């Protein structure tokens, strides 16, 4: 099957220190499939996310990210397969499962005639665990949502303010699992930084983060592992570090004299530009063979650009498109 071929390291990185190996995975998905008539939105998804892990769910629009999330929350009913949250079946034991989740939807459905505070209080009341008001205030302070903002009706809120409110309602009960659908959509860069700080804090506290995004730099920064969905199927499941290895490093070699020699490049090396004083190469794998090749050549300078997750992901996107 397509996704199994593309999985370079299904086991991913070592579990975080906070994770308990004897405890069930935060999320366990087995053969999850969702069809709408002839349309397959999600096909045979298999995934296990350990407690304390930060997991990024990548994919283009319509790839099936939100469908998978909504299946976990029992908002959608699967055609096949099952999913568990901390060992609780998402459907037969949905209440137990959802009691452990803080959810931020991609599109927040809020009643605009309510104030921010009324919304937060109402949603806090639906949680099993009581919300620590000081913790909530701290969240509001960090996201710069003042008391007067919270007293205003939501129809007066900007998109960014609504997003902040969404983040607060998801984080306020300190849930052990955060499911975040496009969390930074609508946040300005400063607030995005604050949000990453929040994520780092909850991660330090041992919470598991499962976030969907198409902002690759965000996922690269926040997540331990990623899964790439393409047309409802998993095209890649890997640690962020491992996925970077899949991408070639870009190397630029400058010479202080003209070099006319035609190099015999080792496997995994590709010359993308060649002038007498400059070579540009894509290097997959170790750099040793390239350094050996350059020995004896008049090298003035060498720049090595770190492999980016974006390159890997874009490659998978393009493969899917073609």
């Amino acid at each position: 099957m397509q996704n199994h071929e593309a999985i370079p390291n299904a086991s991913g990185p070592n579990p975080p220190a906070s994770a308990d190996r004897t405890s069930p995975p935060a999320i366990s998905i087995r053969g999850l499939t969702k069809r709408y008539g002839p349309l397959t939105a999600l096909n045979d998804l298999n995934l296990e996310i350990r407690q304390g892990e930060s997991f990024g769910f990548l994919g283009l629009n319509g790839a099936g990210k939100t469908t998978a999330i909504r299946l976990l929350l029992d908002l959608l009913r699967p055609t096949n397969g099952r999913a568990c949250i901390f060992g609780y079946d998402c459907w037969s034991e949905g209440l137990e499962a959802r009691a452990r989740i803080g959810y931020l939807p991609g599109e927040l459905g809020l009643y605009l005639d309510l104030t921010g505070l009324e919304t937060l209080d109402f949603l806090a009341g639906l949680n099993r665990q009581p919300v620590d008001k000081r913790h909530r205030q701290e969240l509001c302070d960090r996201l710069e949502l003042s008391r007067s903002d919270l007293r205003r009706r939501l129809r007066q809120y900007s998109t960014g303010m609504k997003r902040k409110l969404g983040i607060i309602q998801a984080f306020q009960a300190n849930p052990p699992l955060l499911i975040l659908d496009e969390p930074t959509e609508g946040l300005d860069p400063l607030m995005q930084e604050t949000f990453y700080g929040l994520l780092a804090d909850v991660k330090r506290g041992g919470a598991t983060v499962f976030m969907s995004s198409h902002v690759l730099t965000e996922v690269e920064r926040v997540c331990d592992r990623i899964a790439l969905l393409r047309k409802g199927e998993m095209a890649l499941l890997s640690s962020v570090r491992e996925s970077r290895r899949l991408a070639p490093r870009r190397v630029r070699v400058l010479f202080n004299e003209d070099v006319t020699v035609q190099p015999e490049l080792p496997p995994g090396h590709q010359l993308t530009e060649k002038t007498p004083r400059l070579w540009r190469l894509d290097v997959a794998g170790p750099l040793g063979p390239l350094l050996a090749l350059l020995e004896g050549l008049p090298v003035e300078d060498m720049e090595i650009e770190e492999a980016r997750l974006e390159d890997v992901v874009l490659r998978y996107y393009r493969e899917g498109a073609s």
Partner: protein
Amino acid sequence: MRSAFLLFRLSLKRARILLCVTGLLLAGFQALRVHIAASHSASDYEQIAALLPPSVRTILGPSVTSVLSFNGIVCGGYFDLGIVIALVVLTITLATLPAVEIETGFADLILARPMRRHWLISRTIALVLLTILLMLFMILAGTWAGMAMFAPPDASGPPAWQTASLALDLAMLLLCWGGVAMAFGAACRPGVARPAASLIAFAALLLDYAQKLWPALECVGWLSPFKYFTPFELVMGDPLPVDNLLVLWAIAMTGFTVAYFIISHRDISR
């Protein structure tokens, strides 16, 4: 249970202005009815009855003299066409609340928490019931106020059993349409559920009037829930038709059951 109570409280809070305004209008209109009834003598009613077009006489049947009396006018708040339509529309609006919550995405935030889906329906039933009781109370309050302010000293209001019968009859009719609308509201978008339920209610009302005017339509007249809403007979002094109330009750219960079934099986998506 606590979550369900919070959801109910929130829904009530959001509907409070609509409920207060409708209730006050109903009470005011009822007091006005008493004022109008008190300002006419028995001979006036006879003249009005004589002026009625034959079709209206046919619809009212033998109840025409009872309806066109002080007591009949005062009781009219429980079966006045305008009031009935307004209350049916109000009931349909509230009964389709789950559809609105799903459409706006608010249901996502609620159901992503440890809350069972059926509470969306149970809460709505409670809201519809409370609304019906409140509206009936406001009609009653309007009658009391009108009697105290405008009725002549020798006039007596409708007897308690008659008021209770008319109120129960109207309550069952509203509950019936609440059930129908809720079944639609659990299955469709609000943009579909509300017009569909309203259209069916309007068609049923037309059918009921049509079958009264054209006996040939009586064979399909039983399909209209309005056939089982019989306030004119109650104004005439007939006893409460339990069979009719049971039909309306059964339609309501069927609607609620269908709504529970649909909401527990469907995908919650816009």
